[in-house]
């Protein structure tokens, strides 16, 4: 077969095919098979493209944020602690609504900085006796810890200690001082 003959054959075939496309009506194609019985509700979709051959991206559980809190030293953190103290009424270890709100905010921080471990110190004013206040301060610290645990903070991140009335924050002898001294105080011990 010469080159000329091949060109002719090709031209005839092509002309014939074009003539058929114009004149022949579309023929119904067979339906795709029904979806398998195990997923009857799944919509019919074209097959997914093949998986790309890549390694998964590493997502650290605690993203390193270069913010003021995470970069501060423990001492600096505690001097201006983002964890706010909870205050109590006289002779009481009830948290109350304001105390719970404070602890809600502290819990948010403790979830965000999930490596922190914290000592919750219980403190009392001087109107209780030195002896009973050791127990009352412990009650206050335990009440704060129990509430944080109920919000999902692991108990092993929260230590408690009571100082009774040994370490008053305000050495005054009036109600303004007493209010400051009846507290559960948060100290970050590791970050």
């Amino acid at each position, binding site marked *: 077969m010469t080159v000329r003959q091949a060109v002719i054959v090709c031209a005839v075939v092509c002309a014939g095919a074009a003539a058929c496309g114009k004149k022949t009506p579309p023929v119904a194609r067979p339906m795709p098979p029904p979806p398998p019985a195990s997923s009857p509700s799944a919509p019919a979709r074209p097959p997914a493209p093949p998986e790309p051959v890549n390694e998964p991206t590493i997502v650290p559980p605690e993203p390193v944020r270069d913010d003021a809190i995470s970069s501060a030293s423990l*001492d600096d953190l*505690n*001097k201006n602690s983002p964890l706010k103290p909870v205050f109590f009424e006289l*002779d009481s270890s009830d948290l109350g609504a304001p105390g719970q709100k404070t602890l809600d905010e502290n819990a948010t921080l403790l979830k965000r900085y999930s490596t922190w471990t914290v000592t919750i110190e219980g403190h009392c004013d*001087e*109107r*209780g*006796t*030195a*002896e*009973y206040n*050791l*127990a*009352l301060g*412990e*009650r206050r610290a*335990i009440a704060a810890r129990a509430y944080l645990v109920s919000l999902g903070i692991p108990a092993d991140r929260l*230590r*408690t*200690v*009571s*100082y009774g009335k*040994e*370490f008053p*924050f305000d050495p005054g002898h009036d109600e303004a001082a007493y209010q400051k001294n009846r507290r559960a105080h948060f*100290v970050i011990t590791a970050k």
Partner: protein
Amino acid sequence: MTRELLTGTLALALLAAWPHAQQPPQPPPAAPQQPSEIVTTISGDSSGAPPRLAVPDFIALSADAETAAVAKTIGEVLWDDLNYEREFAFIPRDVYATIPKATSFNDVPFDRWRELNADGLVVGTVQKIATGFHVEMRLYNVRTKQAVYPRQYDGGANARLYAHTISDEIHKSQRGLNGVARSKLTFDSDRDGERMSNTVQTRNIKEIYIADYDGENQKRVTVGRTLNITPRWSPDARSIAYTSYRRGGANIFISNIFVGTLEEVTKGDKVGENWLPAWSPDGSKVAFTSTRDGNPEIYVANRDGSGVRRLTNHPGIDISPTWSPSGTQIAFTSDRSGSPQIYVMDAGGLGLSKKTAESYCDKPTWSPAPFNEIAYASRNGPGYDIKVLDLATGHVRQLTFGEGTNESPAFAPNGRHIAFMSTRSGKSQVFTIASDGKNLKQITRTGNNEKPDWSK
């Protein structure tokens, strides 16, 4: 039955009592060879008034200034020691100058003392020896001029200790009373102004101190650089149990203060806190409060920390244990009724009974026998007062009346005095007071000094 009966045994490290068989080298001519039992005690007149004593300065037999100072100190401290128990009336010291001073036991002007209505006269001599001082003391019956109670001591230069020893022996021999002149106090104090390490807050640490019963010889006995509080003397006065935060949380430690060793009663108890140790009367056990099971309860353990046993079981706060003198009962504070009140249970934890129904009571301290009393702090509104409950009658007497706040009472070993903390002079200071509310005495003056305990 002679003076031999009255020769007590001196349990003193610094003083060596000579056996009474060694008579003074020059017995006074008036002293009988065999004194009868009748003349071995000084008594007052027939009206029943207490005996009137004169206690002039001791006679310095050596010419040096140190001996003179020791002789003067012994006389002054002995007067204070004897006056403390109020068993004797006293010829005031300011009239002693009108009486010629004796230079030995041989020229005591008995007739002049008799003119001042003295029943008894204490005459003593001090002589310097190689090892310190040789002190002789004679308690005379001024009427008979008999030395009814002569004693001799050799010891070091601690003049006050001679006086305390003589006072205790005079009280024992003449009044059948266990004096407290050689007993000691312990308390916690922030006087050194040291700061707690590894803390972000400005916090003064507290350390344990001891002092003589009259506040002299105050000494620090712990170096914890942390919070060391609520000290309690062991019954043998060789050790002090206390609450220490040196491990972070609160634990019970024992310092053997004359040996320099430390014991941990609650060692290894990582869960919960442990406060307020209280020795059993025989010194074998320590009761304390712990939150190891989640709530402040009373526990008892052997001194070495073994055999821990829980005595209370109530969701309220149970704290501040104190033993009865026989060791069969424990008083403590509980707020199970809604406010802190004093309760008594047997030492096994059963037989609970409530003893107070006031607004707020804490720190019970059980008196020694023969008294059967519990002293405690009772809220009076802004602060606390010291009260004493007679367990037999239920009668309560009040010792303080709102002069500052008054807390943390502790009985003297003879039950006739109470040490406590008061803010009446400004900061927290340790005071002692007679158990009838008289004879208030300030013990500490520097820093804050709290939670006293009295050696047994």
